[in-house]
């Protein structure tokens, strides 16, 4: 009989779980549940080598292991740090972590255009969720934001570098899914940008997947651009027989019209695994060419996760993650995007936006400034 594998015991935010050696802190936290999982902007479990760059998943290691219970001196990137037996990790229970995370969010946003009203990613954007949970309401950055020239990446994909947060996910996709990588990162520091060599078009059967891995609206689907807001579309899972890929997709419908085809995503915003465990990437033909319901066999409505504002549409199977979190957060309720209407008064009618001297902040809404009518 094979010897039983020794499992590592790890405690994250006072919740203990046993995981296999070699698991990262982030994955261990995800096994516990979305309540304690640190946010991840660059890590993508299906892409080798990803992670460690955005620094949003920083956690505090209060005790390294049973053998060496010293705390780690710095916050560590949970997506790239493997667990040790007896490790004690603090995520949302650590002031230090929340402070650092707020700092990272601020850094990610200072040069982000915040053009959500015209961005196709709005509503399913990881950066929106992140800034909603950890950001502040106003900016301290008083300088001109960074702007990039637009790059043309061919007939299907639009690159909008100004929105990019340089997570490198698309680079890894191109590296690991396609045979010929033609795009990568040029320049360095603030000016580094995702680009192709002399504006070459991205031309590969699986290159469309870069759109799905992009956490922000830097890479968008040209066949869907400006067609609709995601929260007005209805997602259904569908499949077709495809010779190139698995053919398991998510259709985004408006009426009977297929506006967009994407991969199926799991609750972490990553592409769903197929029954055999491999990631369910889809080919360009399924993604861009098959825009008619008759090409597809519908499997049923999509299970909506907390990440999406379309959760406002009261879909079935909605998971509301707040019970244990309230306990570990000392009675504070987490702020979730799906609660936007009850938490924020952004949609409160009767506020005269035109009368404000600057952009509206929550203070304005708190104080009223109601229209005198």
């Amino acid at each position, binding site marked *: 009989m094979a010897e039983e594998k020794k499992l590592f015991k790890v405690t994250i935010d006072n919740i203990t779980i046993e995981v296999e050696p070699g698991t990262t802190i982030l994955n261990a936290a995800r096994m516990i549940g979305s309540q304690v999982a640190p946010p991840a902007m660059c890590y993508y479990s299906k892409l080798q080598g990803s*992670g*460690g*760059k*955005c*620094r*949003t998943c*920083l956690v505090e290691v209060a005790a390294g292991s049973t053998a060496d219970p010293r705390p780690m001196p*710095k*916050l560590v*990137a949970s997506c*790239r740090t493997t667990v040790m037996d007896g490790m004690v990790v603090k995520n949302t229970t650590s002031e230090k972590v929340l*402070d*650092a995370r707020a*700092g*990272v969010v*601020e*850094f*990610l946003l*200072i*040069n982000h255009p915040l053009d959500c009203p015209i961005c196709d990613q709005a509503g399913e954007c990881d950066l929106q969720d992140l800034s909603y949970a950890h950001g502040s309401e106003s900016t*301290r*950055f008083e*300088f001109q934001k*960074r702007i990039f020239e637009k790059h043309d990446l061919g007939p299907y994909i639009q690159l909008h570098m100004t929105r990019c*947060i*340089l997570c*490198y996910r698309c680079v890894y996709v191109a590296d690991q899914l396609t045979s010929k990588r033609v795009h*990568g*990162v040029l*320049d*360095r*520091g*603030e*000016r*580094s940008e995702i680009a192709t060599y002399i504006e070459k078009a991205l031309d590969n059967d699986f290159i469309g997947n870069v759109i799905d891995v992009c956490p922000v609206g830097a890479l968008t689907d040209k066949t869907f651009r400006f067609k609709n807001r995601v929260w007005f579309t209805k997602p259904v899972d569908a499949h077709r027989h495809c010779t190139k890929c698995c053919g398991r997709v998510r259709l985004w419908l408006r009426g009977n019209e297929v506006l967009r085809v994407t991969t199926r995503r799991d609750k972490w915003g990553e592409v769903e695994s197929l029954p055999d465990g491999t990631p369910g990437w889809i080919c360009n033909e399924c993604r861009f060419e098959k825009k008619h319901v008759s090409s597809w066999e519908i499997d049923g409505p999509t299970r909506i996760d907390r990440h999406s504002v379309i959760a406002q549409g009261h879909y079935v199977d909605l998971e509301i993650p707040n019970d244990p979190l309230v306990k570990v957060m000392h009675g504070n309720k987490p702020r979730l995007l799906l609660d936007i209407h009850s938490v924020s008064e952004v949609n409160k009618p009767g506020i005269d936006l035109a009368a404000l001297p600057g952009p509206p902040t929550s203070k304005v809404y708190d104080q009223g400034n109601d229209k005198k009518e």
Partner: protein
Amino acid sequence: MSRKLLLEKAHVEGIRNYDVYRREGGYSSVEKALKSMAPDQITDEVKKSGLRGRGGAGFPTGLKWSFLAKPAGVPRYLICNADESEPGTFKDRYLMEYIPHLLIEGLIVSSYALGSNRTYIYIRGEYAWIVGILEQAIAEAKANGWLGQNILGTGFNCEIYVHPGAGAYICGEETALIESLEGKRGNPRIKPPFPAVKGLWDCPTVVNNVETLAAVVPIINLGAEEYLKIGIGKSTGTKLISACGNINKPGVYEIEMNISVEEFVYSDEYCGGIAGGKKLKACIPGGSSVPILPANLLLKTAKGETRYMNYESLSDGGFATGSMMGSGGFIILDEDQCVVRHTYTLAHFYRHESCGQCSPCREGTGWMERILKNIEYGKGKMSDIDLLWDVQRKIEGNTICPLGDAAAWPVAAAIRHFRDEFEWHVLNPEECLKRNYGLAHYADPRTPAVA
């Protein structure tokens, strides 16, 4: 006159050539090491000598070597980090330019100790002319049997290659250096795994500074016991200091680490005092990344003790009242220098050299530079100073590699010690463009007559 181990022969005429170097006793450490010592013995000797990394962090070299994984059948690599790009540091350049064979000799001994058959010198791209000097030295060493196959009949093979970088400061970080050496973009790797386990081409690798590897030569020649006697406490041996700024005699000095900062700055043997008879205002004792110190904290520690030129004494008081030995780039600022301007210059440097991989450094360095520019040019607000403090605090410790820390520390120290100067810039937006803030309370504590 303090003892010289590295630069003792640097001014012998023609020492750059093999014949002269050999005649002056060169390559004797290779003979001694390869013929009479086992590789582990050399590592032990280096460990015993207390040699600490000269590149900046000051990590014990012997300990670093002992961490090197040695799985069977996997090649190991030694890389010499000659990507000396820290503003204010130019000691390696001097060493490689004047006495290149010393580095080659140290590399052969170290390669033997670590079992590296292919050793690389990753040299800064801007040091283009030194590539030729090193390659000539390597060719000469090879022609005389110190490199190549079966060196001195011991069966040890070793080749040394020189690889110039392309002008990126970040490639001085060891994992970025390895990436660059592999032909990729010089982005630092995420640790762990450390290079000692998975480095160049995923093989165990040791990366050491030029001066560290050169210091192996006197350790082998003298023996660890003798080497240990030079210096104080955990700062053993000699250290090259590249002194620059407003001093009478800028240059590279080899010091024993038991002289005081005061002696180093004012004695005629070293810096020779502040240029033009002016007063000392501040100093960055270890290259641009380490915290700046005002004059009153430079010569004496917060406790009133004399500060010495060594790892422990310079960092006495932590970052609150101390600094770091760093890479030995000793920059002196006199009373006419503006600390805000100086901090802005450094922030500009780090903004330009950030690799752009992780968010706090990519975005934060640019933000700090812009705020500092505003303050320097009289457009700052009082709240900007606190904002600057907050931004540096959020960069420090949250990045992949130490460049984030290196960008944050100078800003933090400048605000910590020279906040009044920042405030003066904000309060006097027009005057600050025309004249300098001056000395204020952190004036040179020395009486002018002291020799």
